[in-house]
């Protein structure tokens, strides 16, 4: 039997096995990410401190790869959690209205920065080096999560189907408003909103990245601790309840942990689609549905996936003098992979 065979291994050892296999994959992806890019730069020279290679490495590529890894992990893990909540493996982390909320937050800031008062007040509002637009995205995503949570409840408990409907309606509502905003603001501002909506990795300060990484440990830790209970939710509310699971509390925790992870991710990169959908799906094909294995494996798989997608975007398009937003790459890669996975299920 294979060493990873579920028949002979416990969930703990299968999770350890998945992590052991995926860590080198992440390392390899990171190595690709810092080796290749738009400019010619030698990794060896950079490590010896030769300029400008060293600056390119430490100021540009390392922060960018780190950002991609963090965002990829956050989106994948929240995708797994929300799919478990909805009992539907095809749910996307943005379905609960989070994307609409974040977009609305950013668009509001863009308009505000166009007014005299806004232009004066906004620089003062930056916080720990985060831009106002980023803070607005997080605030918008969390506000949407609260709205969906409060409207998506039935008999005092989060009803996933109801919440999904509220999320979808709210997303449409928000995108209509964002389109309206785009129609009235100046063209360069429209460009900024558009770039953000399509998901773009930028260059953030290392301290900020370290902070975000530490912050992400909380929701990811909560979700990994909930993994066993997320498995039981597949039995239905009564099935889980009969096994001693507090279904309301598990849903509440999983919903807000996933929303927080998505919020942190969108603050940096905007809406990077398909990662939270394709990565958990691909992971489940290999590991089976056990969340105690799927969650840690998706975190690592998501990190590797987004780092590679971003590297691909930088390498393939550097001849054109411009690079597509990483969200476009994840969509172009993700959509066919998703269709393939979907067909292989039958």
């Amino acid at each position, binding site marked *: 039997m294979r060493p990873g065979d*579920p*028949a002979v291994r*416990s*969930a*703990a050892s299968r999770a350890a096995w998945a992590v052991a296999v995926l860590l080198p994959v992440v390392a390899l992806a990171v190595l690709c990410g810092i080796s290749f890019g738009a400019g010619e730069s030698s990794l060896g020279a950079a490590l010896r401190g030769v300029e400008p290679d060293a600056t390119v490495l430490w100021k540009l590529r390392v922060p960018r790869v780190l950002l991609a890894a963090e965002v990829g992990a956050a989106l994948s893990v929240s995708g797994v959690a929300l799919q478990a909540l909805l009992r539907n493996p095809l749910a996307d982390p943005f379905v609960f209205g989070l994307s609409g909320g974040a977009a609305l937050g950013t668009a509001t800031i863009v308009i505000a920065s166009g007014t005299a008062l806004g232009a004066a007040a906004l620089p003062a509002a930056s916080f720990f080096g985060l831009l106002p637009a980023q803070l607005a995205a997080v605030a918008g995503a969390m506000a949407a999560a609260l709205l969906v949570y409060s409207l998506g409840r039935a*008999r005092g408990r989060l009803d996933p189907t109801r919440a999904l409907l509220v999320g979808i309606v709210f997303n449409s509502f928000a995108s209509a408003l964002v389109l309206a905003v785009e129609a009235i603001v100046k063209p360069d501002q429209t460009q900024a909103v558009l770039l953000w909506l399509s998901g773009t990795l930028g260059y953030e300060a290392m301290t900020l990245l370290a902070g975000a990484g530490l912050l992400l440990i909380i929701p990811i830790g909560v979700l*990994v*601790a909930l*993994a*066993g*209970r997320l*498995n*039981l939710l*597949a*039995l*239905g509310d*009564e*099935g889980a*309840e*009969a*096994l*001693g*699971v*507090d279904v309301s509390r598990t849903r509440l925790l999983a919903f807000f942990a996933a929303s927080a992870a998505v919020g942190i991710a969108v603050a940096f990169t905007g809406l990077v689609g398909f990662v939270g959908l394709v990565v958990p799906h691909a992971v*489940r094909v290999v590991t*089976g*549905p*056990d969340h*105690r294995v799927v969650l840690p494996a998706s975190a690592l798989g998501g990190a590797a996936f987004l780092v590679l997608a971003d590297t691909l975007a930088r390498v393939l398009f550097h001849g054109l003098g411009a690079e597509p937003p990483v969200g476009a790459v994840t969509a172009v890669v993700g959509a066919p992979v998703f269709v393939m996975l979907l067909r292989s299920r039958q």
Partner: protein
Amino acid sequence: MTALLELRSVHYRHPNAREDAVAGVSLQVHAHEIAGVVGPNAAGKSTLARLSCGLLAPDRGEVLLGGEPLPRLSRRERARRVAYLPQDPPSDLGFTAREVALMGRAPHLGLWSLEGMADRARADAALAEAAAAELAERPISQLSGGERQRVFLARAFAQDAPLLVLDEPTDGLDLAHQVHLVQTLRARARQGAGALLVLHDLSLAAAACDRLFLLDRGTVCAEGPPKEVLQAAVLGAAYGTAIDVVSHPASGALLVSARITREASRDTSPITREKG
């Protein structure tokens, strides 16, 4: 001796319903005992089962597990005292039969819900008990209805609770597996377990249970050993149709069947007559 399960004049009404689904039921299930709940559709059998394991809270009355009122038990403690088999377990699961059986160990696991060797051995033993050992590696979504039922029975057995509450446990099982299930429940009862079964098949209920509760419109209208409860007149009144009860000439087993006349015209059928 303290009863494994005790209901004290329990009342329950579903939200937006006009009448109580369970209207003042008192009963006890003891160790070494298999009790059966029978009765017509919508008599409140499944509601009674869900009240018994704390999935519903009674509007009035009390439910006690092992002598302790349900509200005083934590969810996990409750799940260690009673295992529940729902009426139709989910069929679209990617989990294998072994993984589902292992889920029965959940109330015994710690913070990270990681099972040990003992839990895995217990789950495998439960699969064997439920005649589902050969299904262990198969995903639930690929099983037939009867196979799935055996796997979910294994999950309930793996929970190691002194009380089993099984709603239609023979649903989808062929005759051989029905016999196997009854024998398994008997063996568990000999070791001190108790069971409350919701059953439709009255002959099976007679063979499997020590005591029966005949439920009609939310109240117990007859209770006692199968021989006392399964009487043609009592059953006929509860079910609203003519029912025959005979003893098998060789085995002595009680056989219950509804009288079906092929020529039954519209006005003799009890259900249309009731409506008219």
